[in-house]
């Protein structure tokens, strides 16, 4: 079917129907929900519905649709701030005037925006989304636009120029910044069937790629700690490379949406996993980026250098372009995430990739020079050669990619070291994967090489027939959704794929409050990054990244004193002593009953504003609403919150040692949750991994006796430790009980169930037994959440730390329990 053939209404209806179903799938499967894809998608559908009736004004209507979504996502004053910034930037860039003045004004605007982004002032924190959005829209497109406008002789309408910057998909996909200005303007056409088909196919392809990505992310990608042998290494590196499908799928949806708006911009990725050479891979991966770099940097560099010879020109130009790519990659992250991470692994990744592409380009240049001018038949040997080339590129890129995503170089070297552990089974598995890949890639190259001859019919009709498999997949997905809702066995298996969730490794990190690694370049390829735009959804991670400092002792990390950050509308402050609390003098004031809190992320109030965490609420309520007496004397209660994200029981022992007597505490509230054994293993792994000094004699003995090593994976540590985590937790409680008795400080355990798993009676039983054994009282906050659902109590659907509602409930229950069991504290508490 081509453009000239008449299209039946039924056929057109089929595509509109599939677009409608795709929207339903985006809604039901929460596709890119964190990025508000559904609102952008429905807006584009609305636009294409009215477009045939108002084509004359369609281009002019597009910015209005953009502003409507903008207003929906950023209502009120936020909208006003954004459109002011938009108006200023468009006012600088679009009019024609002196080039140097334009660049100067743009630099000044960029400087002001970046100042707002990075200046540690909470006033600016409230408008940080402005530079983020402006960065997404203008960071590269302004360069492409200004470059083209310098040389173009064509008349380009202002509305085309405005539409170029205000791309609707950018409101859901901030990483979709580059589109060639000339291609964009030239691609506009009135509504036609080909446009409808192309847009629909891109959207379907994107959705399926995103769901395949979810499958790989949840069922194939394993944590680095689980890698044991050569098969694990192969699976880890390849599966982590494959999850770039997320970027590919999301970008394909963007292209589909832009196409449906009338601008049929070119394809962006071309089967990157089948590239047969490194320069071929560079050409297939993010084609817009490659063209941007080639046009703006490579050609000018090459023309300047070509007098020195083609080989010299190619080598130097390519290497410089990769250095520029590295820099611009970080420049992009600066506008998206607000920091400019310079990491050695980035330099290694781009350096090696640059060298490989340069060598490949030189080889290609040489091949062109020596090319013989006779017809080449596509032979089997040629296909095998191409397939082996693809395998080489795929393996090399997977390994290179694993450097990029590894926590650091040491972790990556350790990862590869596991490849020396081989067995017949692991070698056999790797062999099977290689053969399977070679078969698929051989078929691909065979089709590509013969599509003008043997497969001409398929190639000609591919676009028109490919909608049917997509339709079949969409129907299958809808059925899967029904199965899942009915909790049929296979439906449950599909659950992680049909919702936006973290995989096991990432969820563990979030639960533990462990995201202390700075911005990971691979973040976008995992679910972890999804919510960075709405940082409140992953507040624990964000807070950790910004206020935690690594230490080389038993504590592992601490809060940065006097640090204050804002996560959207939430202010989170650290006092001068490094606690998430107000200032307290070390010497206890007269007539004060002082309690210190030993805890982790729940207690440190990640989900709420300063003064809204349950510790502060209890402290304020007790002092405000109750008359508190000790030995007949009225006292004020001070509760100093010393909890730190991710702190395990043993860390709290050292927190106690450091601060309890220093702050003249009368009592210490030790908060206890669940799943401490697994967390203790993680803690020991991190101590070993970070080479921290293990000054604790008990843990030191365990490490020695069990022969725990830095290179041990989490699984190995678990098997080597046996019951050690249990005993370490018990040892921590025993140490705290002993020390507090010696210091005459009352130790009180508080069992606080997790929002995610509120009923865990075995943990409660265990703590009750230990408190009895070590003779310290235990306050039981069981049933604290009543019949509230966890989604109503959590920060977000992927971060289960308590939100304001959760904190209010915990405060209420804790306050009631303290009053009820006031004798424990030797206090008299009566209502004022």
């Amino acid at each position: 079917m081509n453009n000239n053939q008449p299209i039946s209404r039924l056929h057109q209806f089929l595509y509109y129907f599939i677009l409608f179903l795709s929207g339903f799938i985006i809604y039901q499967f929460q596709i890119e929900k964190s990025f508000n894809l559904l609102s952008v998608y429905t807006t584009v559908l609305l636009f294409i519905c009215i477009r045939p009736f108002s084509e004359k004004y369609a281009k002019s209507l597009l910015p209005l649709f953009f502003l409507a979504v903008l207003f929906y996502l950023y209502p009120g004053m936020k909208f006003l701030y954004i459109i002011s910034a938009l108006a200023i930037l468009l006012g600088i860039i679009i009019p024609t005037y002196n080039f140097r003045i334009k660049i100067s004004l743009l630099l000044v605007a960029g400087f002001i925006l970046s100042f707002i982004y990075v200046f540690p002032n909470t006033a600016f924190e409230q408008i940080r989304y402005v530079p983020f959005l402006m960065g997404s829209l203008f960071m590269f497109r302004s360069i492409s636009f200004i470059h083209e406008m310098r040389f173009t002789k064509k008349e380009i309408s202002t509305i085309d120029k405005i539409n170029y910057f205000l791309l609707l998909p950018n409101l859901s996909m901030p990483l979709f910044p580059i589109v060639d200005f000339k291609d964009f303007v030239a691609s506009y056409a009135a509504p036609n069937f080909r446009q409808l088909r192309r847009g629909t196919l891109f959207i379907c392809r994107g959705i399926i790629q995103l769901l395949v990505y979810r499958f790989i992310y949840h069922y194939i990608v394993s944590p680095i700690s689980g890698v044991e042998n050569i098969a694990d290494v192969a699976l880890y590196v390849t599966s982590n490379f494959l999850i770039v499908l997320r970027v590919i799928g999301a970008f394909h949806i963007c292209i589909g949406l832009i196409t449906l708006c009338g601008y049929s911009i070119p394809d962006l990725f071309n089967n990157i996993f089948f590239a047969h050479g490194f320069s071929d891979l560079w050409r297939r991966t993010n084609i817009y980026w490659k063209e941007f770099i080639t046009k703006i940097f490579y050609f000018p560099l090459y023309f300047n250098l070509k007098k020195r010879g083609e080989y010299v020109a190619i080598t130097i130009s390519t290497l410089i372009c990769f250095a520029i790519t590295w820099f611009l990659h970080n420049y992009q992250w600066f506008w998206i995430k607000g920091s400019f991470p310079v990491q050695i692994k980035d330099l290694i990744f781009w350096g090696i990739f640059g060298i490989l592409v340069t060598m490949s380009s030189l080889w290609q240049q040489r091949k062109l020079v020596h090319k013989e001018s006779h017809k080449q038949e596509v032979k089997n040997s040629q296909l095998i050669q191409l397939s082996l080339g693809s395998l080489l590129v795929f393996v090399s890129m997977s390994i290179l990619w694993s450097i990029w995503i590894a926590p650091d170089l040491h972790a990556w070297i350790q990862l590869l070291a596991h490849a020396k552990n081989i067995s017949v089974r692991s070698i056999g598995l790797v062999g099977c994967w290689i053969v399977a890949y070679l078969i698929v890639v051989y078929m691909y190259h065979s089709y590509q090489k013969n599509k003008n001859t043997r497969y001409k019919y398929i190639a000609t009709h591919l676009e028109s027939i490919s909608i049917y498999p997509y339709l079949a997949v969409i129907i299958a997905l809808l059925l899967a959704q029904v199965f899942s809702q009915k909790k049929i066995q296979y439906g449950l298996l599909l659950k992680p794929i049909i919702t936006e969730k973290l995989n096991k490794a990432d969820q563990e990190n979030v639960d533990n409050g462990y995201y202390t690694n700075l911005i990971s370049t691979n973040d976008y390829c995992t679910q972890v990054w999804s919510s960075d735009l709405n940082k409140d959804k992953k507040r624990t991670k964000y807070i950790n990244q910004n206020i935690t400092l690594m230490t080389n002792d038993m504590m592992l990390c601490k809060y940065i004193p006097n640090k204050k950050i804002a996560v959207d509308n939430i202010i989170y402050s650290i006092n001068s002593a490094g606690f998430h609390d107000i200032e307290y003098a070390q010497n206890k004031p007269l007539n004060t009953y002082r309690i210190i809190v030993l805890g982790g992320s729940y207690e440190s109030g990640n989900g709420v504003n300063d003064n809204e965490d349950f510790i502060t609420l209890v402290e304020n309520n007790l002092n405000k609403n109750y008359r508190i007496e000790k030995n007949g004397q009225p006292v004020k209660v001070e509760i100093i919150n010393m909890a730190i994200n991710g702190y395990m029981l043993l860390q709290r022992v050292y927190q106690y040692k450091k601060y309890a007597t220093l702050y003249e505490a009368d009592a210490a509230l030790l908060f206890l949750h669940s799943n401490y054994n697994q967390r203790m293993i993680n803690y020991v792994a991190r101590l070993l991994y970070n080479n921290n000094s293990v000054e604790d004699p008990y843990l030191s003995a365990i490490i020695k006796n069990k022969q725990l090593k830095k290179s041990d994976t989490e699984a190995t540590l678990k098997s080597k430790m046996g019951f050690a985590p249990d005993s370490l937790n018990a040892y921590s409680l025993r140490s705290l009980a002993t020390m507090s008795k010696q210091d005459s400080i009352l130790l009180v355990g508080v069992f606080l169930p997790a929002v995610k798993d509120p009923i865990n009676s075995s943990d409660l039983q265990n703590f009750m037994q230990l408190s009895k054994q070590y003779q310290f009282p235990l306050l039981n906050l069981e049933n604290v959440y009543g019949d509230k659902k966890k989604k109503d109590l959590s920060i977000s659907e992927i971060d289960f730390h308590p939100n304001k509602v959760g904190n209010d409930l915990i405060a209420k229950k804790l306050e009631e329990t303290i009053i009820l069991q006031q004798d424990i504290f030797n206090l008299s508490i009566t209502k004022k």
Partner: protein
Amino acid sequence: METILAETKTYISTQLLDDTSFPLEYQTALISSGLIDSISTLKLVDYLEKKYHIEFMPHEVDKDHLDSIELIAAFVQSKMK
């Protein structure tokens, strides 16, 4: 014009295309279809500069001037004037 068209077509099909059986026409999209890549484009520019004694500017190496043999011939001719 005819000579430029014919010579350019011969050069592209014999020196730049992997698949020499490709049915190359004067209107065939070269760059936008991915038929020739940036290295081949530079090779083509080098050939045109030497063959017709013209000089390209970096911004002229694009689809507007090089995306088909017809466009190439027209651009070369405009440069030769």
